[in-house]
């Protein structure tokens, strides 16, 4: 039950993009078309799940075991960037079609603050291994939801008559603000 709560909390109630502002760069950059948004969402979810597992292990068996918690940021960022690199090589070998659709997004994921944020939050909240993984999947699903909704709105926005000074980034930010308002409606759903 607790696992389910963590999942729903990360995916909807405390959506990473709309309440913690993590992963804003891809959120604004890759949300122009629906199909790329879906692919980016899947790639991020995949990396997030692996990151949650690996950083948990690193934290428990290296940082805490050798009493060097101040190396947390350095080790996490190295772990994440090498993980992304490995995933890229693995996908290229195993499934070329998948690589063609996800490939260009993978390098971008390294500097996605949502990934490092996820690892830090999981440590901060002292999740167990299984809880961390559910947290990672939930955060990824939440990111995908936000990205896909945003892409859907922006495709419609192409045909709207937006004042000249608000075109582009400002309008996207305003739409994101309204989305965040809408997601505030979920706030009372869970007490986590």
């Amino acid at each position, binding site marked *: 039950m607790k696992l389910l709560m963590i999942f729903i909390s990360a995916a909807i109630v405390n959506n990473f993009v*709309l*309440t*913690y*502002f*993590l*992963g*804003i*760069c891809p959120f*604004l950059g890759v949300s122009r078309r629906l199909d790329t948004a879906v692919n980016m969402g899947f790639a991020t979810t995949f990396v997030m799940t692996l990151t949650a597992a690996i950083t948990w292990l690193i934290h428990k068996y290296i940082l805490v075991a050798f009493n060097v918690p*101040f*190396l*947390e*940021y*350095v080790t996490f*960022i*190295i772990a994440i*960037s090498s993980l992304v690199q490995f995933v890229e090589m693995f996908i290229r070998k195993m499934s070329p079609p998948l690589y063609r659709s996800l490939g260009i997004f993978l390098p971008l994921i*390294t*500097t*996605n*603050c949502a*990934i*490092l*944020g996820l690892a*830090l*939050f999981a440590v*901060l909240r002292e999740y167990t291994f299984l809880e961390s993984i559910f947290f990672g999947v939930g955060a990824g699903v939440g990111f995908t939801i936000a990205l896909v909704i945003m892409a859907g709105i922006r495709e419609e926005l192409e045909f709207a008559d937006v*004042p*000249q*000074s*608000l075109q582009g*980034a*400002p*309008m*996207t*930010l*305003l739409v*994101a*603000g*309204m989305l*965040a*308002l809408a997601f*505030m409606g979920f706030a009372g759903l869970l007490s986590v």
Partner: protein
Amino acid sequence: MAVSKSVLEEFTKGLWSENPVIKALLGLCPTLAVTNSALNGLSMGLATTFVLISSSTIVSIIKRVVPAQVRIPTFIVIIAGFVTVADIFLKAQFPPISKSLGPYVPLIVVNCLILGRSEIFASKHSVGMSIIDALGMGVGFSGTLVVLGSIREILGSGSLFNFKFLAESLFTPWVVMVLPAGAFLTLGFLIGMINFISSRKGSKGRAQP
């Protein structure tokens, strides 16, 4: 003479014409997340400026030693090192600020602004120029954060730098401004307004011969 002019240019471009937040939309995560008060915005801005200047200096010093293939990981590790320093310093000297910024201090590591300046500027220019560039960008970033934080704090809680100057009876705070949604809306309108002002200026400039 030409040198001193270009130094000034490298510094001032970060303030306005290439302002990292308004014009380039870099480093938006901390910009939106911590600007619920002017003080938080200022401390985040200063922490980022410190990391930006230190890492730009180091990157510029070692630019000839690092092979091109591994430069991005190298830059990230340098940045992460300085972020750790900033984080420990804040925790030791200013515990309340460190607490209110929370996990957003470590997240300076993945602030695209810092990596961007290392890659675009510091790895190609001399140490002195890189410091000037980093200082300008840092001041521009901090300034934008303080402006955003002030707007949100005034509208959201009727105070500025924790000093309450609007009485509750006169002004009902717009709670939404300090919540996440307010951050997106404020930044959206701010950029829109700046676009509007600069387009007016531009058309005026064109009208004059």
